[in-house]
């Protein structure tokens, strides 16, 4: 039995209503426990946290860190790898490469170095699940999992068109079990299939998907309701149609309205909140006020932001036509992928510039979202790493949210028209440390249905981050004083002290075994691999943890 006591820290644990109270935290065998009743109790190790800010470990609920698209991006950007700060080998840790798409081991170290202890890859095609698990195995320290793309899956669309909700339910459960995935993800539902079959796209949720006789609306509602029936811990995770296009706010609003009666999570909502004419980038603007008002008044919805930051980065998406669009806009190199009956993929390097009207507006629109959603429990911090920026930019985003002056300084360096086309300059709100703890820990844990994460109450994972208060907020969050994972001090003063492996989180929803015959018959007609080779075996999982369905 190993124990750790963190004494005298200023604790921010919003899930348990603790907002800056001084207290102790006890961790025994990796889990937080009640402080022992006897006054002279001692722990194997004590951290003196006097004067330090104590929060649960950070949770990134939407990033791209594993699987073939991430690996392809790594190979695609030697020019960035060459100039990025190298990650050197130490006695405990492996070497790696940095930049916008760090190598696997480096990804784990960098997340831990920021005080993040959990991260979810947001877009894995089922066929790539094995690869994703293999890369996650090489992503140390953090706990992790991934969402399985099913918004353009042929079997899903066929069952929706045929009015077979039972088969759909069995398939989604079977697919999650086969991939050892965590949640159901929709990426441009229907649109990727149209792109793959003929180079087009869908432009609204009531257009019909060629050859399948279903609409994005049917896919969204069908999967949302099925996920709910299966009792998955996380609701359907939606990347809406028309990402990045001026004027896409209408599609986003339609998608939100279509979710009435269901729970749903809209991801990287920043990319879906644009005003303007789709054929004319110069008409670009913000429609956050009306979209955020809708979110504020509809408790069935949660969002994460997908903040854009000014830097070199790499766009990687399951939204194949979006990759092509970005390639056309930027003129940069482009990778396109087509995963059999399941999904697509597009990868394009991109530079977000403060001097660009569109890019500066994207930056401002992301901040508008953080500042205009009233209830921080329904908005999570994300950059859609690496699409809007690297996860390494989180401390900078925190400083922008907590300091209005800093936002205005950046805005002053952007084209003047930015202020006319969004409301950022009028937003006075500044986040408190408690609200930061919500959007980076407590809220994502709650959205993901992770009862044992995102808080510091008894039973929670012993994942704790301790920061030294600093007037420079960015520096405070960039360099945590200590990071504790499962009760072990992993980072001490920016040094990695232990190389642990982290757990794989997944779900095992039940399904009717008789439904597998139909899946198998379809599979054997259409896939390039053998049916029995498709499910990911248990031996691919590292220290797995099944998160229960309700």
């Amino acid at each position, binding site marked *: 039995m190993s124990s750790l006591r963190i004494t005298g820290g200023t604790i921010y644990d919003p899930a348990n209503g603790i907002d800056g109270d001084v207290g102790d935290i006890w961790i025994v065998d990796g889990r937080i426990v009640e402080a022992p009743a006897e006054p002279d109790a001692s722990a194997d190790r004590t951290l003196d946290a006097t004067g330090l800010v104590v929060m649960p470990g950070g949770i990134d609920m939407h990033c791209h860190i594993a699987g073939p698209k991430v690996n392809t991006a790594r190979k*695609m*950007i*030697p*020019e*960035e790898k060459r100039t990025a700060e190298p990650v050197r080998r130490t006695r405990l840790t492996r070497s790696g490469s940095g930049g916008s798409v760090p190598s696997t081991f480096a990804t784990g170290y960098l997340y831990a170095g920021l005080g993040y202890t959990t991260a979810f890859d947001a877009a894995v095609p089922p066929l790539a699940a094995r690869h994703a698990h293999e890369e996650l195995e090489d992503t140390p320290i953090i706990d992790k999992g991934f969402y399985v793309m099913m918004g353009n899956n042929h079997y899903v669309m066929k069952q929706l068109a045929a009015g077979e909700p039972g088969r759909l339910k069995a398939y989604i459960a079977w697919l999650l079990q086969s991939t050892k995935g965590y949640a159901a993800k929709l990426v441009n539902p229907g649109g990727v299939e149209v792109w793959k079959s003929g180079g087009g796209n869908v432009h609204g949720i009531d257009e019909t998907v060629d050859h399948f006789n279903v609409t994005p609306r049917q896919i969204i509602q069908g999967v949302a309701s099925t996920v709910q029936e299966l009792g998955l811990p996380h609701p359907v995770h939606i990347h809406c149609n028309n990402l990045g296009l001026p004027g896409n706010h209408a599609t986003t609003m339609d998608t939100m309205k279509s979710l009435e009666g269901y729970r749903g999570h809209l991801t990287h909502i920043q990319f879906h909140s644009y005003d303007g004419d789709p054929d004319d980038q110069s008409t670009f603007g913000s429609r956050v006020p009306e979209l955020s008002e809708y979110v504020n008044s509809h408790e069935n919805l949660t969002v994460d932001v997908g903040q854009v930051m000014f830097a070199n980065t790499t766009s990687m998406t399951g939204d194949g036509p979006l990759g092509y669009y970005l390639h056309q806009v930027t003129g*940069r*190199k482009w990778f396109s992928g087509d995963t059999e009956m399941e999904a697509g993929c597009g990868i394009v390097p991109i530079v977000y510039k403060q001097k660009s009207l569109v890019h500066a507006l994207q930056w401002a629109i992301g901040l508008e979202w953080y500042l205009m959603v009233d209830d921080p429990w329904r908005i999570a911090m994300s950059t859609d790493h690496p699409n809007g920026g690297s996860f390494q930019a989180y401390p900078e985003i925190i400083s922008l949210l907590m300091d209005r002056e800093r936002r205005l300084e950046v805005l002053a360096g952007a084209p003047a028209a930015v202020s006319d086309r969004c409301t950022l300059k009028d937003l006075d709100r500044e986040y408190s440390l408690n609200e930061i703890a919500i959007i980076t820990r407590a809220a994502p844990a709650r959205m993901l249905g992770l009862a044992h994460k995102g808080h510091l109450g008894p039973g929670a994972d012993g994942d704790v981050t301790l920061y030294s208060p600093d007037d420079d907020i960015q520096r405070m969050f960039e360099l945590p004083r200590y990071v504790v994972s499962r009760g072990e001090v992993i980072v001490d003063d920016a040094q990695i002290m232990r190389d642990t492996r982290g757990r794989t989180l997944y779900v095992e929803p039940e399904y009717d075994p008789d439904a597998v015959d139909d899946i198998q018959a379809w599979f054997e007609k259409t896939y390039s691999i053998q049916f029995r080779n498709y499910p990911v075996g248990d031996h691919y999982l590292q220290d797995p943890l099944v998160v229960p369905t309700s």
Partner: protein
Amino acid sequence: MPLRLRLRNDSPVPIEVDTVRLPTVREQTADQVLATEVLHGNVRETLGEFFDAEGSASDDNTLVWEGDCRRIKRIAERLSDGQVRVEGTAGMHLGAEMTGGNVVVDGDATDWVGAEMKGGRIHVRGGVGHQLGAVYRGGHRGMTGGEILVDGDAGNEVGHSMRRGLIAVGGRMGDLSGVNLIAGTIVVGGEPGIRHGAGMKRGTIAFLDPQSAPDVLPTFRGAGNCRPTFLRFYLKHLTEQGWPVPDGALDALYRRYNGDFLELGKGELLVRSE
């Protein structure tokens, strides 16, 4: 008197000397210079393991590398000011990413001379390898300024994705010179290879040898004959620099081709026709 580094121990394993930088070594004694850490394969060693040093760069800001340095990589990389001379052969990445100053090589150099160079001048009296003034793999912009003069031959992909500047190759030219050229000028004195200017947007590739006109890609279009005034200025400048301008090139008639029409099509090939 310059600082002179004489190669003593010719290891078959390449040595990377990007850590030997003029602004630093000109403030140092010869012994301090020899203590500079260099990469020998994947092992860190000191420059003194391989070189002898004499003199100092403190007065004339000049560094001389002496000997067969074909396995000494990254000489004068990121040079910003001063003179670097190689008395012998230079290894890969000579003057890569340099922003100013002068590099002169008495003998030959190898691949990646002046890769992604931003300013300054490199003059190689002998020949060079591939990717002269080119972009590194994956990047989208090669040389963005300065001059590279080669008296002898050059290999493939000269000026790959070059954005600005001048490259002159006196001898034979390999294939695909000016591939993906964004802008800038490439001058070829000798016999050219194939597929020049493939993917070029703007810029000029001039072929000065009337005996060996290159095959022009089908995505270029003939655009008449001319005697370009700017080329006369360039060639006079090259003559002043001691680069071997072929006889009669100044006043010759050039056939002009526009391309590459798979891209912007604002580039030109000038092929000497008399």
